[in-house]
């Protein structure tokens, strides 16, 4: 069976998805402040890698990278709520791109699997 990454259209679709997802994050007061002083192009590249990973595309994901990348945010209060917000927006993004409930649940499960890495537990 092909991955959701392939089903929704590969790299081109992920690029579209990243813009939709990033906009949702930037206008959500629950998480927006974490993006205040962030270089938008670098942030986008990271989100590209993240979305590619959770969609089952070609990625070089390493739990240790996820830990290191978020350690300073955990110090600023990053917690389960924020991971929930990410998963919520991820699901809404995929819905906009035409993914079905089953696909969205599968992606949410992968995103959930890195929760402890992100939160440094």
């Amino acid at each position, binding site marked *: 069976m092909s991955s959701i990454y392939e089903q929704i259209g590969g790299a081109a679709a992920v690029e*579209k998805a*990243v*813009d939709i997802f*990033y*906009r949702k994050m*930037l206008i959500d007061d629950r998480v927006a402040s974490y993006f205040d002083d962030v270089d*938008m192009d670098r942030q986008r590249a990271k989100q590209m890698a993240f979305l590619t990973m959770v969609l089952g595309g070609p990625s070089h994901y390493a739990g240790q990278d996820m830990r290191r990348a978020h350690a300073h945010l955990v110090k600023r209060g990053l917690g389960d709520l924020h991971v929930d917000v990410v998963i919520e927006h991820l699901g809404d993004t995929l819905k906009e791109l035409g993914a079905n409930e089953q696909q969205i649940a599968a992606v949410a499960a992968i995103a959930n699997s890195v929760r402890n890495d992100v939160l440094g537990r």
Partner: protein
Amino acid sequence: MPRVHCDGRDLTLSSDDNLLDALLGAGVQVASSCRAGACQQCLVKAVRGVPPASAQSGLKDAQRAQGYFLACQAKLTEDLTLSLSAARELDTPGSVVSLDALSSSVVRVLVRPGAAFEYRAGQYVTLIRSDGLARSYSLASRPDSDGGCLELHVRVFPQGRMSGWLASARALHAEVSLRGPLGECFYVPGQPAQPLLLVGTGTGLAPLWGILHDALAAGHTGPIELWHGARTAGGLYLVSELEALAARHRNFTYRRCLLEGPAGVGVELGNLDVAVLASATSFEGRRVFLCGDAQLVQQTKRKIFLKGAAMREIHADAFLASPA
């Protein structure tokens, strides 16, 4: 603790230091300016050892492969032997051939490269004076215009060492070095019907001027809208030239925005980002170029992205202030 060998000296660095500060702290002379990885003045070469990849961002592949990296961006994890002077081999010599005032605070500087110099209008160069003083300027010219000269728009600051010099006749015929070209804020042919939005403050007009002429020369047919913002009318320049272009090219619109009045035909009052954002209900599908004041560029980038422009279509060049 990584050890650095350069110019016959051995230095031991703590892992928290960036290499530039560590070298300066040890009394080693290193030219530097922006400390943000943009001007590339502190470009050094690892002649032995592997430099951190994160300090090679923005360099050409060939330069990376040769071990070049930016000292201001480098936190070392392993021992290196450095050459501080190697980067000069990458520079292009040039001479200042013309200086003329574009306004009371902006000088147009033409520099003739002494060797082949490939670039795109809208990129920037770091201009290095013979005493090592350096500043980065955007390229308003196109490679096949101005007789091959590079056109820079230099904002003259009262205490500016480089700009004050360039505003004086002393700079005329001076020999300089050029590092670059740098940056990715330029027009790429293709999609000739795509609407273009060019937004700049102050001498942020320089890259936009180049990009605009590049697009027109490439036969761009889609609407091209250029916004130039300044605090007062005195900060605007090339006004009649831009008006003439707008009269000649039906797809080109020139708009001005001033923080302080008076308003007039084609002149709005208020914040540039607010005026630009209010000019359309959505920016989806536009190719956007943002140049000038760093804070304004970052804010506008975020707002325009939120209002529909795709990130990959937003090209931004935030001007960084130089130390006095």
